[in-house]
């Protein structure tokens, strides 16, 4: 533009032509780049981005009432919410409940409503079974006659929430919160509050595993990084050896090793380090030992990769400048290895908070992590909303960790191997 202002007549034309040429020659290259990455982008979209979006949607989805009682849903959304709904709404509700009962779709709705308020299930199912075709008096009287519960505002509040297009029910439940009768957010009763505890446990186990991996992997990676490649490479393959067997097999093998009569207890007793066999499995110790083992390579690899790229002359320079070997390590090598530490910890921690099989096999009831509950809600109670909400929670924690990492270390310094 500066050239164009200096010689407006000629340069402006020339500049336009030049820009056009640059654009044209760039377009081909861009097209090629897009073409080459297209399969991967499509793959990620279909098998990664869409499932995550689906999970996020499921965690706030609220379509049971809308699919089972569509007209009632529309009417409830329009209703003011004071007292009981007017007669015409109740008439539609009765008609649709009867129809749903006949079509056997009422159970699904009953289950959904039971999450809002305990006892709702019985109320809905019994009412659906017993509703007459025509009201005995008004519909209001008929409902109240079937069950006086129908007169409570809490029931109608719950129904109205179930009629909304979205619900924060599951997300709140995942945080041990719920909506009160006036729709305010409150803590659930202490005996029902379990998820924060489980989240805390998940984070704590992940933290311990990450710390153990770091303590074990740092000296190993340091040693490997200092070796000539012809020794370091075979040793690295040994580090990767566990990947050659499945996670399930490795976790099961730990049960054999760690059980009361297993080799580890035998060795400890043989060395007279313990009198009684230690309880190492089906408790927290088993989970920590096995998860540390399984995740250790994910710590070694980024550490090794970063340390390998720390030129030995840095430490030598520090020593030549008068720093003792320990000081040179602390002031020079350690800070330069921080990207590897951060990447390894991030990787191990994120993998650990999603762990399922290892704690399920090696842990007791109090050692199960969030993923176990995701599986529980998906496979056993078929509560997709709750499963998705816990998944979303896990996702949020992961994103938060990543943001923290980006803040502290910087994404561009991330090295994974």
């Amino acid at each position, binding site marked *: 533009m500066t050239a164009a202002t200096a010689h407006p007549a000629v340069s402006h034309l020339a500049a336009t032509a030049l820009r056009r040429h640059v654009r044209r020659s760039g377009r081909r290259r861009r097209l090629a780049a897009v073409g080459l990455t297209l399969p991967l982008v499509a793959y990620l979209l279909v098998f990664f981005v869409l499932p995550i979006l689906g999970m996020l949607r499921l965690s706030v989805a609220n379509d049971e009432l809308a699919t089972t009682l569509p007209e009632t849903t529309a009417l409830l959304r329009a209703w003011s919410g004071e007292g009981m709904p007017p007669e015409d709404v109740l008439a539609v509700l009765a008609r649709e409940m009867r129809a749903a009962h006949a079509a056997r779709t009422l159970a699904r709705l009953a289950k959904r409503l039971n999450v809002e308020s305990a006892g709702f299930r019985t109320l809905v199912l019994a009412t659906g079974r017993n509703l007459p075709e025509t009201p005995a008096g008004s519909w209001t009287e008929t409902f109240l006659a079937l069950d006086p519960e129908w007169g409570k505002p809490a029931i109608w509040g719950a129904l109205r929430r179930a009629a909304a297009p979205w619900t924060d029910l599951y997300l709140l439940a995942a945080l041990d919160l719920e909506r009160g009768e006036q729709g305010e957010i409150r803590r659930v009763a202490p005996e029902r509050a379990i998820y924060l505890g489980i989240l805390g446990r998940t984070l704590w186990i992940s933290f311990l595993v990450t710390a153990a991996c770091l303590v074990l992997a740092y000296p190993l990676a340091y040693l490997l990084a200092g070796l000539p490649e012809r020794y370091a490479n075979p040793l690295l393959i040994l580090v990767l050896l566990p990947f050659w067997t499945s996670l399930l097999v490795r976790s099961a093998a730990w049960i054999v090793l760690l059980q009361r009569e297993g080799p580890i207890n035998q060795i400890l007793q043989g060395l007279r380090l313990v009198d009684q066999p230690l309880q190492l499995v089906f408790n927290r110790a088993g989970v920590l030992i096995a998860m540390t083992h399984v995740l250790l390579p994910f710590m070694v690899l980024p550490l090794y990769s970063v340390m390998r790229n720390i030129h030995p002359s840095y430490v030598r320079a*520090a020593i030549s400048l008068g*720093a*003792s070997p320990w000081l040179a390590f602390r002031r020079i090598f350690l800070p330069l290895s921080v990207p590897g530490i951060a990447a390894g910890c991030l990787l191990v921690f994120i993998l650990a908070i999603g762990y399922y099989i290892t704690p399920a096999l090696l842990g007791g009831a109090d050692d199960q992590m969030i993923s176990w509950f995701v599986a529980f809600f998906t496979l056993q109670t078929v509560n997709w909303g709750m499963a998705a909400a816990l998944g979303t929670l896990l996702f949020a924690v992961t994103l938060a960790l990543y943001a923290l990492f980006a803040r502290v270390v910087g994404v561009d310094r991330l090295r994974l191997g």
Partner: protein
Amino acid sequence: MPRADDAFVRFEGVTKSYDGVHLVVDHLDLEIARGEFLTLLGPSGSGKTTCLMMLAGFEQPTAGEIRLEGRPLSRVPPHRRDIGVVFQSYALFPHMTVAENLAFPLEVRRLGRAEIEERVRRALAMVRLSGFEHRRPAQLSGGQQQRVALARALVFEPKLVLMDEPLGALDKQLRESMQYEIAQLHEQLGLTVVYVTHDQSEALTMSDRVAVFEAGRIQQLATPRELYEEPKNAFVARFIGENNRFRGIVEGIEGGVCRVRVGEAEVRALAVNVAGIGKPTTLSLRPERVVTGEAAHHLPNRFAGRLLETVYHGDHLRLRLALLGSDAFIVKLPNRPGMADTLARGTELVVGWRVEDCRALDA
């Protein structure tokens, strides 16, 4: 027990082997005087960097001892040696600013903050980088990084400064100006410098003395002038500067001058390093000591050659001749007006040289 006449640095029979079979450094004896600029010059793998690393303390001699001011260094860990090192890769700490890099050796020595600041300021001014305190090494050009590395190696006023091919990564022009700067700092600060390079022109222009390394041994230790003009053996002659070489047999030696048969011809040369009559020798002759035409007529060594090629270098011309059985005989002539036109390819040319300029060395 330190002796009064002790050299500043002394290598005594220093030997280094990594595998127990090959000697990287072979019974090295070397003395370095205080304030000297000594260059270790040699091809890669000749042991020169290993010597430097042993002096710095990053390698241990397999046998022998290195003394600094008479004190044996083998028991002194590298961080207590007080030797500044400039590394080939500069090794500036990338996570620290320029000022932090320079302050590092001073902090390690527990100097007061005010003194550290003052010394850092002076060191930066010395290498003309004032105002760059808060830059990171990655934000500096190669030459600037080099100067920071230099300042860092000098800021704690070490007894001795080692430089391991410090200019290797710079382009030619920058290298030459840095050579000048380093030589000036050496002069001004009275530093003792041991400098490693494989670049002979660097060695010749900067050093008080140059040690030419080959296969773990010093082939010649001399001033640059001696090294160039009076190489002791064929390796040094070949390694330092350009030279024409002939293989021949010694036919006679009289008063330091020998007659050498090269093919059909006889060449008279200085008997510098010959084994005896009847033994093979290598004759070495600098291309710029060869004269042509009229000037060659009265010289004892005078031969006719055929001009194969003329390369124009601006200030001089390089002629390649077929002579004495070699077709790579090089003559360097200062460029005079009109000269380039007279030297057509295929011309018969008479060339000659003095006895003193042709050295008979080991075979």
